[in-house]
């Protein structure tokens, strides 16, 4: 029998109410006299009580009733919300939640003894002040405690109506936003930070929960319906890809198919948006967890939540809930030290735990950082040897960063004692597998004594990913772009020399470093004869998976495509090499390769050298002076350097694509003009040649301020780090030159590229397009 509409509505509303209550409770601990907060909590419980009576859930009604009595006294100021009361109310919250859960799953309140809890709640009403004479004093003396400091959520109001979950948390509660001014965090004087909510953030005083404009403009939608829509949009994307390919040659269809393309893209974006939810949905669970844990562990922790309105696909949000909770538990248990230890180390006895969400390209990055003890690398090394994870010889060679990665291995824990919070060694590997399952990545950074940062990189959406289509054994496979760092082509005649072997293991020298190679055809079809490398084209896709770098050798490359990931049946999933399948633009099916699994299957391990290099890069990230990298190019026989950070892409195109405005060479990219700097006279030379043939020219497209410019070059040679040169005598840094590969090399002055004539100028200047 299906749950009736009324009960379902009640469940959803009650759960939202309880979520609000939970947030308010943790805040109430900071501001025990805040009437708004008490009112909010009271309303949540009252609403449940009122509706349950109507629906006939007596157990729920009784429990809610006793809670309401206590809250009523709080509201009238007869008792003060001290710690026992808050603990009692949190218990009430858990009690109500478990009954609601039971109603949701088995449609009855279930059997359970609430008498104890009700008794405790009544006890709290009677002589509360006798128990805690000066609540705020006790708090200060207490070792444990959690303070919630949420950075103001700018735009939280604006973004919420667009969010999929129509629950209008917005007008109902002021977000747990207590803005702290950082300097005010005086170590000793302020164990708890209490500041009035910023007026801006409490635009709607929490008077009327659940009624406001947001309610009228939003709508509850079943998630399965959204999933179905997403699936259909995925289908539409596939069909569009096929239409685009089929009509590419027909000029009459171009306009239509371009329009289809646009509409599909828009539709896809809207549906994806509908599935987006702010991370505050899971962040808001954290204050409670931090409060409970810090109390049971005897820590003092201030929780900061940053970037709460960052949005993420609902299914992904669900998927990272557990890893994130785990990471927070870990930080509290292993990271932040007990207050006395912190004080002895000269730190603020109150530790800081920050959860920060932000966008980074097509990823959302969620950081869990604490200012605790950090991870003792030596301890990790010892533990690893003890557990037999690595041999002592190998451990001695591992770089710090690689040692840190070891904590992601199953069965690894450095906690001296096993607590009930963490330390059983089933932690970080779960975090890693969960995050990697959804195509994300986990990184860890730790400084002993300074703290640890765990970074979860989560793709924005699961369903559609960019991928490179590769071909081998006469089949197409999709390779997720996320893992791909570069492609190397080795034509058959060079293969014998370029691919080297150590005892049957193929290797390739990638910029002087040996890169292990995996032949996809041999991996997928073992036991049969394959064409030798010298008889076919070899494309090496350089992949990075789980800290392993290797080259996957395929026979051919097709275009990159945005693919819609379709799940595989369990039988095919258990092969382990494929993460899904997809339908390509040409209606072919392609299996999606899982780079991590391929590395594992082929026995590629983390290369210590490589990791060391990464560690170096990590160092430089931390702000040490770095040598900037340059793209080394050749211009008419002379070498020059272009700062790599400014390089957007390298174009190779026929000279006929270059057009001229007056004497200025430009490139026309679908209506966007790119001025080209021809300092080396390469275009001039090509122009002479172009009378007889159409030579190719290479243009390095760079970013210069807000504009883009192209630099015509003869060849691109390499990428290298440059070092500064100093003028003899004065020791002044020389501008415009750098030392690249032991040679003094001029740096191309991008700022010196003449801007294109602007509109007003263009009017004066006759634009003369000469081919």
């Amino acid at each position, binding site marked *: 029998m299906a749950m009736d509409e009324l009960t379902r509505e009640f469940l959803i509303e009650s759960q939202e109410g309880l979520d609000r209550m939970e947030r308010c409770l943790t805040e109430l601990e900071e501001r025990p006299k805040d009437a708004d907060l008490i009112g909010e909590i009271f309303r949540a419980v009252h609403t449940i009580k009122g509706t349950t009576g109507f629906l006939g859930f007596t157990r729920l009604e009784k429990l809610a009733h006793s809670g309401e009595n206590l809250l009523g006294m709080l509201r009238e100021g007869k008792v003060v919300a001290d710690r026992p009361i808050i603990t009692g109310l949190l218990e009430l919250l858990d009690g109500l939640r478990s009954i609601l859960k039971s109603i949701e799953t088995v449609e009855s309140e279930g059997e359970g003894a609430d008498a104890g809890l009700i008794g405790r709640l009544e006890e709290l009403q009677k002589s509360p002040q006798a128990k805690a004479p000066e609540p705020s004093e006790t708090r200060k003396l207490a070792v444990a405690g959690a303070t919630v400091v949420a950075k103001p959520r700018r735009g939280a109001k604006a973004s919420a109506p667009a969010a999929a979950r129509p629950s209008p948390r917005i007008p109902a509660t002021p977000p747990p936003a207590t803005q702290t001014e950082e300097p005010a965090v005086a170590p000793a004087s302020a164990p708890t930070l209490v500041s009035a909510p910023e007026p801006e953030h409490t635009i709607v005083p929490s008077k009327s929960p659940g009624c406001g404009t947001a309610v009228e403009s939003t709508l509850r939608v079943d998630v399965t319906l959204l999933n179905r829509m997403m699936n259909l949009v995925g289908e539409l994307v596939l069909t569009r890809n096929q239409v685009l390919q089929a009509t590419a040659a027909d000029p009459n269809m171009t306009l239509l198919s371009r329009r289809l393309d646009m509409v599909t893209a828009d539709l896809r974006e809207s549906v994806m948006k509908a599935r987006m939810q702010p991370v505050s949905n899971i962040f808001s669970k954290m204050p409670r967890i931090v409060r409970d844990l810090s109390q049971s562990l005897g820590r003092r922790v201030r929780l900061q939540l940053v970037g709460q309105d960052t949005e993420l696909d609902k299914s992904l949000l669900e998927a990272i809930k557990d890893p994130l909770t785990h990471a927070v538990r870990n930080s509290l248990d292993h990271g932040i030290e007990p207050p006395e230890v912190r004080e002895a180390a000269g730190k603020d006895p109150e530790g800081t735990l920050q959860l920060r969400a932000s966008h980074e390209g097509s990823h959302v990055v969620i950081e869990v950082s604490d200012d605790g003890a950090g991870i003792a690398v030596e301890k990790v090394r010892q533990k690893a040897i003890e557990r037999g994870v690595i041999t002592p010889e190998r451990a001695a060679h591992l770089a710090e960063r690689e040692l840190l990665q070891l904590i992601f291995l199953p069965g690894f824990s450095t906690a001296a004692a096993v607590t009930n919070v963490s330390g059983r060694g089933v932690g970080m590997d779960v975090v890693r597998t969960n995050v990697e399952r959804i195509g994300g990545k986990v990184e860890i950074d730790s400084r002993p004594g300074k703290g640890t940062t765990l970074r979860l990189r989560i793709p924005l959406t699961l369903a559609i990913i960019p991928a490179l289509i590769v071909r081998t054994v006469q*089949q197409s496979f999709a390779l997720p772009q996320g893992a791909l760092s570069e492609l190397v082509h080795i034509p058959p005649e060079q293969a014998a020399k370029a691919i080297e072997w150590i005892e049957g293991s193929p290797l390739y020298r990638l910029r002087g470093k040996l890169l292990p190679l995996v032949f996809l055809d041999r991996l997928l*079809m073992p036991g049969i004869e394959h064409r030798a490398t010298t008889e076919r084209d070899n494309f090496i896709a350089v992949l990075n998976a789980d800290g392993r770098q290797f080259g996957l050798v395929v026979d051919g490359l097709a275009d990159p495509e945005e693919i819609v990931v*379709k799940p595989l*049946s369990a*039988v095919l999933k*258990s092969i382990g090499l494929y993460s*899904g399948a997809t339908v390509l633009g040409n209606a072919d*099916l392609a*299996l999606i390769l899982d780079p991590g699994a391929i590395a594992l299957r082929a026995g590629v391990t983390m290369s210590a050298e490589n990791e060391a290099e990464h560690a170096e890069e990590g160092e430089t990230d931390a702000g040490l002076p770095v040598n900037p990298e340059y793209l080394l190019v050749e211009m008419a026989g002379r070498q020059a350097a272009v700062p790599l950070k400014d390089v957007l892409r390298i174009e190779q195109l026929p000279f006929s694509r270059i057009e001229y405005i007056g004497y200025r060479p430009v490139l026309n990219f679908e209506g966007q003009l790119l001025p080209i700097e021809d300092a080396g006279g390469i275009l001039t030379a090509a122009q002479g040649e172009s009378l007889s043939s159409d030579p190719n020219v290479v243009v390095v497209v760079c970013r210069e301020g807000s504009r883009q410019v192209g630099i015509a070059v003869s060849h691109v040679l390499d990428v290298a780090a440059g070092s500064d040169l100093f003028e003899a005598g004065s020791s002044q840094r020389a501008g415009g030159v750098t030392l690249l590969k032991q040679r003094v090399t001029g740096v191309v002055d991008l700022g010196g590229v003449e801007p294109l004539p602007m509109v007003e100028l263009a009017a004066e200047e006759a634009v003369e397009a000469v081919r």
Partner: protein
Amino acid sequence: MSQVQSEGKRPKKAKATLVEMCSVRLGQGMFAVPIKHILEIVGSARPQPVPLAPSFVGGLVHYRGDVLTTVSMRQLLGMPPREGPQDILVLESAGGCFGLLVDSVCEVLTVSSEDYEPNPSILDERRRALFAGAYKLKDSLLIMLDPERLDPMRLGEAPAA
């Protein structure tokens, strides 16, 4: 829908039930799947092979927005693979949908439960595991296939054929 023999002639059991079957051909053999298990019949498909998959997997096909794993009946029976397109029965089982690759789909027959007999003991173990008995037709036997037994999940658990 052709009505086949067995009506009226032997009214010894009054509650003989009629079942609709879709008959399929594999090489020389005739097999049948109860129609109620069939979601759809996809004609002349060319499944995409999956390297390293268990041998009974006939490949993948695109089916209504999803990617469907197919089971090659020929492989299961130890018959040589067939060149050219094959027909697919989209079947529903406890583990979800899957496709059954057969040479061709023939017709829908109505058979009576009276004519049913379980697997004869002479069959080898592998075939006994695959077949679900047979119906005696006038001039031939119709071998029953049970989607539950052909589910790739189940086949995957069993020791590989």
